[in-house]
């Protein structure tokens, strides 16, 4: 491992250097926090919220943020993006590919794992050039989480609380300095012209190891089933009453899929200009939680209840993607649980399914003596 060390004070210069060459996106405070406090309720100040946004300078960067409202997927897969424009009823078509050179600064490891999953989904088979163009021109600077961000996060269970094998540049907070691990040529390019950087000494390595190993005890396991058991737990739970109960609660609003770092389902829509012969085709986020998502022209809906749609989401995350990619489709970031209006939380759902199975097998053991 080739470790570099950068004093925190050099961050201002670094962001400035990067901004000259790249569009720099990082975690920052959400600006327009207009939360109306109910009269008399002074107990709870509005919770600070963070977003990934374009940085005007290092002063905006909030590297100790807990989590962001939306994950960095919005950079690669904007909520609405133009695929192409057309003129003369399609006889002239102009492809839109976004090739802006971009750095995303301060990505947590869960979100980095999520980007790698999106990479698989969009590159396998027929590649999605719109995603690939953005991805190829983007460098990711990840940062090690030293504290759990939320009781809804279960990154340790999902194995995403530490870095993946593939990364560009990774930061670890050592107090007054950052340790920098270089994972790719793209990552190393970001260090060009940086004057304050130095190679780590033996003491630095020792401090670095201390910081990393202290993580273990701080991060709790929250799932009662092991990651490797989840596909089989789901395989035997397809007809569980749990899905019906959740279907009764679920509002079908699709918030969970919007804030999910690995959800990428989309719809394609046309917008036509006043001349009726020119216009644009867009890709927009869609959600498997919406009614009509799985319906066909005749009106038949192949997933016609909220219970079935919610179950599909859980199966896609914890079974189908594990089966086909060898990687779970959930990184345990907890955003869906934070955002859900009726408190549906993956930790609770999985633990509930697991307890039911444990109870059943316990009974069986009794019967069998």
């Amino acid at each position, binding site marked *: 491992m080739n470790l570099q060390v950068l004093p925190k004070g050099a961050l201002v210069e670094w962001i400035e250097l990067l901004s000259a060459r790249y569009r720099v996106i990082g975690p920052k405070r959400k600006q327009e926090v207009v939360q109306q406090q109910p009269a008399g309720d002074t107990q709870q100040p509005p919770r600070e919220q963070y977003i990934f946004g374009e940085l005007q300078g290092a002063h905006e960067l909030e590297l100790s943020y807990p989590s962001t409202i939306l994950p960095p997927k919005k950079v690669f897969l904007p909520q609405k993006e133009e695929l192409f424009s057309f003129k003369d009823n399609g*006889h002239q078509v102009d492809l839109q590919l976004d090739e802006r050179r971009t750095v995303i600064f301060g990505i947590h490891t869960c979100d980095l794992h999520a980007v790698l999953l999106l990479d698989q989904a969009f590159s396998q088979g027929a590649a*999605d050039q719109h995603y690939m163009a953005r991805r190829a021109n983007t460098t990711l600077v990840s940062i090690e989480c030293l504290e759990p961000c939320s009781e809804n996060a279960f990154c340790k269970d999902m194995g995403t609380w530490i870095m993946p094998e593939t990364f560009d540049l990774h930061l670890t907070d050592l107090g007054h300095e950052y340790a920098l691990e270089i994972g790719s040529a793209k990552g190393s390019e970001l260090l060009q012209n940086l004057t304050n950087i130095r190679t780590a000494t033996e003491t630095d390595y020792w401090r670095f190891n201390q910081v990393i190993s202290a993580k273990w005890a701080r991060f709790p396991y929250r799932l009662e089933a092991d990651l490797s058991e989840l596909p089989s737990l789901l395989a035997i739970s397809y007809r569980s009453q749990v899905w019906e109960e959740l279907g009764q609660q679920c509002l079908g609003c699709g918030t969970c899929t919007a804030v999910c770092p690995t959800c990428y389902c*989309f719809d394609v829509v046309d917008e036509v200009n006043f001349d009726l012969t020119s216009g644009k085709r867009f890709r927009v986020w*869609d959600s498997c939680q919406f009614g009509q998502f799985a319906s*066909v022209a005749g009106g038949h809906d192949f997933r016609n209840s909220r219970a079935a749609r919610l179950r599909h989401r859980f199966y896609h995350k914890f079974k*189908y993607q594990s089966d086909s990619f060898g990687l779970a489709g959930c990184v345990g970031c907890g955003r869906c649980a934070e955002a859900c209006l009726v408190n549906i939380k993956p930790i609770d759902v999985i633990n509930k399914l697991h307890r039911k199975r444990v109870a059943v097998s316990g009974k069986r053991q009794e019967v069998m003596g």
Partner: protein
Amino acid sequence: MSLPLIETFSTTSAYLPLVARIADVRPLTQLEKLFTIELPGDLSLKHAPGQFVELSVFGVGEAPFSISSSPSRSNGTFELCVRQAGQVTDALHALGPGDAVGVRGPFGRGFPVRRFRGKDLLFLPGGLGLAPLRSLINQVLDERSNYGRVIILYGARHPSELLFQDELTLWSAREDVEVQVTVDRSDGNWQGHVGVITTLIPEVQLYAPNTVAFTVGPPVMYRFVLVELLGKGIREGNIWLSLERRMKCGIGKCGHCQINHLYTCLDGPCFPYAQIKRLEEAL
């Protein structure tokens, strides 16, 4: 030499349609029209029966359609049988010869025709299900000596909804094709069989071990047809279905066509029953 259309996508964007021209429009029923689409230049679709294309009306949108013409009769054009049932199909029905449409494809897994050589083939299209099966039927008839018996049992709701009536007459007239047509509800002039498609199956004498069945129709039809076919002793791997879903992207990304872990646009739309019988979301 003609270039397969799908090879033109890799260099640009998989979502960018190629501009093609409507060469002919033929009304089939009150709701369905047959569109002949002509690809530009030297391009040809190079599809397999059972595959689908994404067809665009620029400014309105894009939708998946199964290809209705046989690859053996392509010649730079292909045919789509389109029912007027939504925004894109409304717009399409308003177009005529010479108008531009966008084409992407062909997509999906079609019927593996070569695997059926020497077999007796039983076709059971219901309603609009004849559109994709016509592609396979005509390919089989164009190389008729490669196959055993060819039996077509076609069901529609009403005589006015029968598709490809001229071709049905041609097929019926052939001595090497057995055709039976039924309607759910008769009208005054209908002389033929009345009843749902499953009522035709018991009367057919088959040698089940050598029979491959192909059925395409609405989901409710599959449940009943499958019971009859399995009852006849046809093997689960020898019953082929084409499943309808809203394949939006055609390349396994958008998520709309998922059937449990399968993507209809990649793994299907044509499936042997053995592959999908345990999938809760399939039928």
